[in-house]
């Protein structure tokens, strides 16, 4: 069967993005007792934007929070949203990485135990007539156990999405729609691929019936 070379390269690129974005990986940090812990509900706090380059407008709610809520449900976790980061002041990646129990206990609503903080570290795109449109993104995620005052899971998600076909149509498409949304979406998949599945018996009730 004849396959147009450009068509096949598109599929290769698509598969590459899927493999890189979705295949499980090891988290930067994961509590060895994570699987033994019964996480009844995860509270997802507002996304922290720590970008230096803020030239791209990002809908944090839709592109990051909604996505992580879906991914957590797909892994069998109950989730809830919070509109407040808590009484913590400035939050940076370095502050969260080295956070002390007193700091962790002030994150999010006082009554909630399992707190997830997501960070958008970088998103950029390069759309030139001379090269293929490319988008990159970097996100970070933290799961805190407020009762113990510790980090339970921490990881980063990165992505690079590119149209390898080339030509004017993909460039025009990228100029109108951008490559940033795809880049963030793939980075979120990459981030959450290291988050363990909930193996509790009642977790099946939470999982969406029709995966997207």
């Amino acid at each position, binding site marked *: 069967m004849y396959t147009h070379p450009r068509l096949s390269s598109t599929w290769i690129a698509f598969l590459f993005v899927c493999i890189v974005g979705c295949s499980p990986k090891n988290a*930067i940090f994961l509590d060895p007792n994570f699987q033994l812990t019964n996480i009844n509900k995860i509270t997802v706090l507002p996304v922290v934007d720590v970008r*230096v*380059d*803020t*030239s791209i407008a990002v809908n944090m709610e839709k592109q990051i929070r909604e996505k992580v809520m879906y991914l957590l449900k797909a892994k069998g976790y109950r989730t809830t949203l919070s509109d407040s980061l808590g009484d913590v002041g*400035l939050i*940076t990646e*370095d*502050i969260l990485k080295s956070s002390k129990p007193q700091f962790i206990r002030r994150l999010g609503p006082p009554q909630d135990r399992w707190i997830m903080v997501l960070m958008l570290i*970088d998103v*950029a795109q*390069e759309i030139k007539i001379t*090269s*293929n449109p*490319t988008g*990159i993104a*970097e996100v970070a995620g933290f799961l805190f156990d407020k009762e113990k005052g510790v980090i339970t899971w921490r990881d*980063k*998600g*990165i992505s*690079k999405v*590119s149209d*390898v076909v080339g030509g004017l149509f993909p460039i025009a498409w990228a100029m109108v729609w951008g490559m940033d949304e795809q880049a963030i979406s793939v980075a979120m998949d990459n981030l959450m691929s290291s988050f363990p599945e909930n193996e509790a018996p009642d977790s099946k009730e939470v999982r969406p019936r029709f995966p997207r």
Partner: protein
Amino acid sequence: MTKSFTQRKALDSKLNILVLKPFLKFERLGDESTLSASIYRGDAIETNLTIAAIHEVELRHLIPIDSRNQSNNTLLAVCNQLQSLSPQLSSGQISNQTHSLLKLLDTLIGHHAILVQYLKVKVGPDASRTIYTFSGTSSHFQATLISCVTGEVLWNNEVLLRDLPKVNNSNFTESIKLLFKSFPNGTE
């Protein structure tokens, strides 16, 4: 290349500015594994950043002091401790430990402020090995001026360069210029 957050105040021209050795961190994009600075000519970058900072301070009619040239062992030890705290200082985190170090510095040398520089480099996949031009590599330059007397952040700025910091590259020089563009002048 992008310039971001800036805070600007006029400074007392009698204020001496102790320029600390820059803190360099090279890590792999995505997994945070540390990479050796020597692979990327870390020493040359460090020297360039220090010289550039001293030059920029002089241009503002302020008095720079190079922490590398100090002979007092206590002073050197304090400088080294503060330099190791550069990542925290650059994000405005002044802990009790930092406060006591700044107080000690104030008693040792008097009317001073410290200039902290922190360069965090995230190295992405080698762009030359792929068909893409955008590798995700970035150099995040941060500079912070802190009063030794009050522990207050007098000025800070940051610049993102989407490339490796290459000493002889015009983008590197331009990034440093951008970083110090808003550095306050000394007033009479």
